[in-house]
């Protein structure tokens, strides 16, 4: 988890020009860090490449829009990192 978070935080800092020390596991990418959907495409591209996965952004967006999930489940960074770890584990299973 910690290494996943470090990687993701560094990607966000570099991609969105956000000071690294302001990014914490509790940060909400949208509400706290102000990342918009276009910037998040860049982040998703970098995360996909770094971890060899494909973040299911469309599925997440649909779940949020339909009220089946909250943005916190996917966009609070510790939760995002947990999803990434799950995807990495599923890939190597």
């Amino acid at each position: 988890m910690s290494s996943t978070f470090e990687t993701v935080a560094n990607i966000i800092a570099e991609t969105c020009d956000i000071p690294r020390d302001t990014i914490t596991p509790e940060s909400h990418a949208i509400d706290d860090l102000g990342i918009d959907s276009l910037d998040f495409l860049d982040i998703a591209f970098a995360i996909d490449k770094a971890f060899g996965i494909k973040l299911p952004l469309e599925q997440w967006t649909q779940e949020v829009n339909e009220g089946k999930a909250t943005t916190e489940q996917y966009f609070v960074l510790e939760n995002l990192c947990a999803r990434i770890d799950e995807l990495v584990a599923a890939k190597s299973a």
Partner: protein
Amino acid sequence: MRPEVFRMIDRVVSIDPSLSKIHCQGLVPEESSIFEGHFPGHPIMPGVLLIEAMAQSTGWLILARNRFDRMPFLATVKEAKLRTFVVPGQNLDLHSEILHEGSGFVVAKTHATIEGRPICAAELTFRVLPWPEGRMKTVVMKVAELVSFPLKDFVDA
């Protein structure tokens, strides 16, 4: 090419069997209303339209990959380089290559040449979305025929 109506591609020359690369061509016309302003007496292809041409080339590749299931919309232009002037009568060779296909987006690198000389290049990101309501898909399919896109290979009968 009819830049005044944003028809930047004349012909899809080839699509790689891996669906990761495409080659298109567009001949810059001798006459176009865009040259009335860009520039009077010195017609030069606008750089933004060179980027549009590279985006359309990439767009045909994305449509081939998803078999016209969804429409790519240009979202980000990065590292755009416009190396030299392009004038009426020159034939652009447009090449695009997929770098990554994510969930609902595609990243590609693209460049254009004229007689082998590098003209322009960029990295482009597209959102790939369901077709909007209305005529857009029908219009795009008609343009596909005009540009010799191999529809029979990529659209179910």
